[in-house]
């Protein structure tokens, strides 16, 4: 990915040890570097704690999606029955109990799809392009990237080394 779009200048360190990575993150945040990109092959709670990330707002999408489903189903079933009222088996034209199943299914359907849509939107909004990446991050390494070019970079590199990074690379604009 890096290199295709405009490259973000900064320092990328990769760690083998989780505690090393968390130490580095904590130190960086203490040093004012709040804007970090941390790579990991799996959702890791220690990293989340170190980053003190807020809870994802995706649940809003789920909620709204679900409610939309319910209303849509209710409206559809009742309106369609009234639009062409046909009598069957002596049942009421708009027999609500019979429609509950459909209301439920649409709630789940739209709720689920909305959540996924939410993730996509949120991720796209929060992702910065052109950040350095290393294939081993999806394997067994943890990566931490600091968008700090120029004179700040050496300090950051030193910090990483002290924390125990196994490798540190620089990205120039």
């Amino acid at each position, binding site marked *: 990915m890096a290199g295709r779009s405009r490259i973000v200048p900064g320092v990328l360190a990769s760690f083998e040890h989780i505690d090393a990575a968390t130490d580095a993150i904590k130190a960086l945040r203490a040093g004012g570097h709040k804007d970090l990109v941390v790579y990991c092959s799996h959702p890791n709670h220690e990293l989340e704690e170190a980053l003190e990330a807020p809870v994802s707002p995706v649940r809003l999408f789920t909620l709204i999606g679900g409610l939309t489903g319910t209303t849509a189903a209710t409206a559809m079933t009742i309106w369609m029955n009234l639009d062409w*009222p*046909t*009598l*069957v*088996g*002596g*049942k*009421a*034209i708009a027999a609500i109990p019979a429609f509950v199943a459909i209301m439920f299914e649409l709630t789940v359907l739209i709720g689920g799809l909305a959540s996924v849509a939410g993730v996509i939107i949120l991720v796209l909004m929060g992702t910065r392009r052109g950040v350095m990446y290393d294939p081993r991050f999806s394997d067994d390494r943890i990566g931490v990237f600091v968008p700090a070019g120029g004179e700040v970079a050496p300090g950051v590199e030193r910090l990483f080394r002290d924390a125990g990074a196994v490798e540190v690379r620089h990205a120039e604009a």
Partner: protein
Amino acid sequence: MADDASNPSPIDRRRFLSVLGISGAGAAVLSGCSTGQVQKLIPYLVQSEDQIPGVATWYASTCSECAAGCGLHVKTREGRAVKLEGNPEHPVNRGKLCSRGQAALQGLYNPGRLKAPMVRAAGGGFQEITWDDAIQRLAAKLGAAGGKVAVISGAGRGTLSDLLADWTAALGGRLVRYRPFDHEPMRAANRAVFGRDELPAHDFGRAEYILSFGADFLETWLAPVENQRGFARSHGFHDGRMAKHVSFAPRMSLTGQNADEWHAIRPGSEAALALALANLLVTEHGAAGGPLAASLAAFTPESAAKESGVPAETIRRIAREFAAAKPSLAVAGGVASQHRGAIEACAAVNVLNWVAGNIGQTVLFGADLDAGDGAAGLDALGSALDGGQVAVLLVHEANPLYAVPRSAGFAARFAKAGFKVSTSPYLDETAAQCDLLLPDHHGIERWDDARPRAGVVGLMQPVMEPVFKTMATGDLLLKTAQKVGGALAKFNAPSYEAHLKARWADFAKAQGQADAEGFWRAGLQRGGVFTEPPAVEVKPVPGFTPAYTAPGFDGTGEFYFAPHVSSFLYDGRGANKPWLLENPDPVSKITWQSWVEVHPATAARLDVRNGEILRLTSPQGSIDVPVYVYPGLHPDVLSVPLGLGHTEYGSYAKGRGVNALDLVASKAGQPFVPYLSARVTVAKTGTYRKLASTEGNPRQLGRGIAEAMPVALAAKGLSVREAAAAEGHAEGEANPEREVEALKGWAAEVHERTRKGDYARELPQWGMTIDLAKCTGCSACVTACYAENNIPTVGEDEIHRGREMTWMRIERYWEGADPASPNGGAVEARFVPMLCQQCADAPCEPVCPVYAAYHTADGLNGQVYNRCVGTRYCANNCPYKVRYFNWYKYNDHAWPEPLNLQLNPDVTVRARGVMEKCTFCVQRIRGAQNQARLEGRPLKDGVFTTACAQACPSDAIVFGDLNDPQSRVRQASQDHRGYHVLEELNTRPAITYLAKVTNRTEA
């Protein structure tokens, strides 16, 4: 969908235009006009005032499917006959029609019809020739015959028969009027007892007590439709009473199944029973024995019991009841009991009737029902043939090479005729042996009249352009006469129509009518001229003494072989009509097959089961036929239906089933064919053939589907459940009392809902009642439904898989002893016509995902064929199982050309993959409503009805508007005998069944 609604094999355009044009040329609603012959085809450029496309035109005519001569109304659409119904004005059938009569339509459009005259080619096959050529050839042969001419004619009494007689006489030839079932023994007996060689009429309607000695009067005996109408009137429950019907017969025919008591007698013992009863009447019940009293004394109940196997005390009881009922009626005869002692049996029954004072009351001499010369006539002709006395033999409306038992050796004698000519419209067994085929018009394509009995003259008129290049035999005779000249020259009428009108002019004179033309037109309109024949007083001829000698049987087999007449196939002429083959036999419920009926005890002894093929061997021959275990049989009797086993007669009949006549002994010199005269041995073949039966489980399992109550309780006006309680039966109701109330409340609430929105208007609620006390299970309604609703016949293989499409079916449940048990004979048959119940809260409707099944505003279960996608959920959810699915493209195979011309244009032909069902003939309902709207009058009760109700000879079915307080159906539905099938499901059916009433003396 292309395959929706479209006629499976559309009529080709030219034929369509032709029929259109022709009928345009001059047809009239029940008017004296006829289609006549067309000179050129004209499409409807100029609208003829009496032919409106889309509106049916009706013609009166006469049925020629049997000797009864019922009146017809022929419904034509755009110049095609599409349905046959009874003529309400006709005294014989009063607007009703049996299955055979209705199926005549499939004879008209039969794919097996000969399409043109043909002559035997050198190669042996037939080759088509022109009519001129054909007539030339016939004339030449006749000219050369030098009087050595013979004619076999099965035509009923009428102008054509007269012409045929004169024509033959003029040629110096001999005419034999031959029908297979000619009731010779009855006539012989009447000659012997009363000195009258005739068949009397019988008034079942007035009889309080009916004794049947093997006469299947509801099926094929004399005038079945008339009999059934009368039977329903007397034996149907009305104002607290009903006649009693006791049947003595070796086999429980449909008539026997409708008896309150059926006694399985030893074959041939009818006379002994009848005379014993007569004797008891005279000695114990004060009947006037007159000259016969003395000779009767010899016939004691005990001797009769010994002969027949009916206990003496039963005979005494029946004598007591019989004597108490006035007037009563005893009947005998018919093919099923035509053994060597048949004349004595009929004579004995004459005596019984005379002693009981029924002669002139319910037995009406002077009616002189139509009958031919019978087997004797054919036998005489046989010897002429042997003597080489026949140079030209003309066969008309007869098929002796099939109907005469092989043992009579008639085929060999027939072959001795020099030149053999057939006028049969079909290539039947006889025609196949002829040298010249001159196919006649079908009965409703030609002019003629019929005199089935004194006082009744029915007219037949061509209602449409002939389907094929055939010629009315009347015209043929006249044309040939002109060619031959000489003695025949006097037959110089320009056409048979002219000849007929001339005869009618004479008739008008005889009737003292000045205006012959008016008389003629009136006759055409009414369907004939009907007068009351003068009754004739008869009394026993001096010197007559009743007698009984146990009839002899050929062979030494352990079983009596009792062939019976199928009420559909009759003398075999039904075998080429798919309706009659597919409509389940009313007794056995088997289709498309032959079977042999075996008593359960006998079956157990022989260790045979349904479908196992037995070989029956009599001195005359042997047949292999699958077993049907049937409780309604004397254990020593095996019974096989007649009418199948054709070797010719079209693709439907050819090679289907076996011909029971092969086992029958028929020797030269005897006055009639003793059908019941052979003893057979049985041998297992170890092979099986699945019975094409529509019978599921024949027991009701206490589900209250076919309810009944004794007349005593019915007279008290009890309901079905009250009657059951009174009899101390646990009620069949699945819901306990406490639930019923709750259900009622709920039902009312649901009913409110059913009247929402579009449905709130005050509309008719179509309903039906079926009176099981009248229904005889004859299945005429089923045939009518096939005809009206374009129901496809699916054939034997599909019926094996339970896929028959009968929108209306007759369910036959056994009550009483288990048919499988040795005493299975003691069973009661109950019939339930089962069709869509048009439930108000129909389970089939809400489950349809696409609203193909829905409720109409006037209370029908609509079925939108075009919308149906075929989930079949509705059929699963229908408790009555009256929905039928198109598993294949049945519409492609059911109506091979030209059968498709019969299709009712008002009804969609259903595509493959859709569900279909009865909708109370919705096309008739809408038609009548539109008519009423056009004429700005309200739709009155009874101006129209469904096809089944229209056809029902018993008038058991009543259809109409339940919201109309005056309607017949409303009245009937409130009868105390009324009940709904599976009421506890709360489907609220629109059909109310009236429980059967049984008139049994608990002995």
